[in-house]
């Protein structure tokens, strides 16, 4: 008589049996376990080791201690602070605007609206466009002489912009482009909004509260966990922008869009400095962890968790 469940309601603890169950469990998960070791943990350790070496990818790595790191932080590598600044600027611009924009659309869509499904599809559509095609489209739209963007500005009497070709305007332009692809965030917000119990709003209606009241006292507090999730994801993704910079601006003009990962890519694959590039990667990892940790810390103050339900 082969006994009951694997996850254990009333499994009798015969030794042979539990051993077999363990083995099968691991066997089934083996692809994921191997993947974790081969493509994540192993590379992480190797990369940490490389970050302390001088290594071109073809010579044998020679240990140089913290040199790669001191070169970055001392400013001897003039691009490190530049890349960090550019990327931070992008994150500061693109994450809040992306969240506010998609939250606003989600709130409006969550009302009793005709054509809701169509709007939802339309808002989401840009996020499935391949990044290379996105870059092409926006290169053309933002062309200073012939692009549609400046044409529209001129039509309403505003001066055009240099967009991605201006040192000052390149990062804001890319943040605008980022706004175009926030459909996924909008859908997550919409799903969160649909989960808020109607009864909460009814309570306010009975008290004669206004719509603004509902928004301030119910919608926003109830949505803080979702805002929190999107904020973390936004930060993580924002720090890893690469393709736009590679395809559209090549880091320019005058390094004004030298995004962190682009800087890393250049170091690794154009200058063959694998050791230094690994150090750059680890610093990015630590920055992202610190930021995420900080957001987590502050989240106790502003994220509302329903009951004790840990989300």
């Amino acid at each position, binding site marked *: 008589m082969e006994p009951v469940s694997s996850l254990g309601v009333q499994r009798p603890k015969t030794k042979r049996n539990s051993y077999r169950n363990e083995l099968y469990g691991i066997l089934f998960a083996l692809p994921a376990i191997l993947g974790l070791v081969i493509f994540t943990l192993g590379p992480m350790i190797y990369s940490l080791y490389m970050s302390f070496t001088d290594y071109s990818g073809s010579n044998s790595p020679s240990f140089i201690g913290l040199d790669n790191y001191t070169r970055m932080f001392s400013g001897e590598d003039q691009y490190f602070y530049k890349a960090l600044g550019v990327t931070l600027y992008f994150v500061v611009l693109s994450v809040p605007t992306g969240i506010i924009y998609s939250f606003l659309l989600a709130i409006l869509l969550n009302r009793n609206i005709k054509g809701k499904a169509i709007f939802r599809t339309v808002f989401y559509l840009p996020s*499935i466009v391949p990044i290379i095609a996105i870059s092409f489209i926006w290169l053309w739209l933002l062309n200073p002489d012939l692009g549609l963007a400046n044409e529209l500005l001129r039509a309403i009497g505003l001066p055009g912009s240099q967009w991605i070709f201006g040192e000052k305007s390149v990062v804001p332009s890319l943040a605008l482009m980022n706004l175009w692809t926030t459909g996924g965030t909008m859908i997550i917000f919409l799903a969160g909004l649909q989960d808020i119990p109607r009864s909460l709003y009814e309570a306010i209606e009975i008290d004669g509260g206004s719509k603004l009241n509902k928004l301030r006292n119910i919608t926003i507090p109830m949505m803080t966990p979702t805002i929190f999730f999107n904020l973390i994801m936004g930060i993580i993704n924002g720090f890893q922008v690469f*393709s736009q910079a590679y395809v559209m601006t090549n880091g320019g003009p005058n390094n004004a869009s030298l995004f962190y990962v682009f800087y890393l890519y250049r170091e690794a694959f154009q200058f063959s400095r694998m050791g230094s590039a690994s150090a750059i990667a680890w610093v990015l990892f630590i920055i992202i962890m610190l930021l*995420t940790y900080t957001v987590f810390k502050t989240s106790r103050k502003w994220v509302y968790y329903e009951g004790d339900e840990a989300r």
Partner: protein
Amino acid sequence: MRTKAWVEKGLVYLVLMAGGLFSLLPLIWLIRSSLMDMGQIFELPPIWIPNPFRFSNFSEALTILPFGRYFINTTVIVIFSMIGVLVTCSISAYSFARMSWRGRDLIFGLLLSSMMLPYAVTLIPTFIGWSKLGLTNSFIPLIAPAWFGGGAFNIFLLRQFYLSIPRDLDEAAYVDGASHGRIFISIIIPLTRPALVVVGLFTFLASWNDFLGPLVYLNDESKYTLALGLQQFKGMYAAEWHLMMAAATVVLAPAIIVFFIGQRYFIEGITLTGIKA
């Protein structure tokens, strides 16, 4: 009061329309530009409807570079990645959702936290690993990871679906002597087909849209994917916007088609990742 409600409703639609316009205008501009000749595309004020429709842009753009070759390359990578993810991810997710073994929660925790790891950290060592094996400039580095669980995100997603299946179903089968393999194939898989479609679609898009992977691993032009081909095209025909837009449309079209076919599943999938996170 009534007029106030009307004004409010009007404002809501106005904002939604503006948002919709912002989403659609670039795509409309892309398609309209891909169907014009050099003269029309630059005309001011801009013309919205091409006259005549110049479909020859497509054949011209597609014959300048071997886009047929790129299409085949991309398709090969996409299909083998999808198969790999669907097979290995579903098996692993089953183990995490339904089987108990020592270290399971630890491994799953590690998997989840690996989602926060920037790909930049693993990119370089993985590249060096593949080049030591002499496998760069082949499709293998782009496909192989899919065969090892298909990434934390997909495992998380599928596990979430599996957990939503009532446990009574497979427990009954287990009591009747069915093996885990049998339960997985004849109970779990049929019940979670929509979930597999979601994962399959996400994998398709990620693989079809991938730019950095092919950029790092493929050197030979004969091995290029569509994304790399497009990048190459830009270097050579930067001023010929009508041809560039035609080429971009061709690369974009399959993603859009797949999206419209599987739209329902997409929305479901994203929703799930957001709420349950």
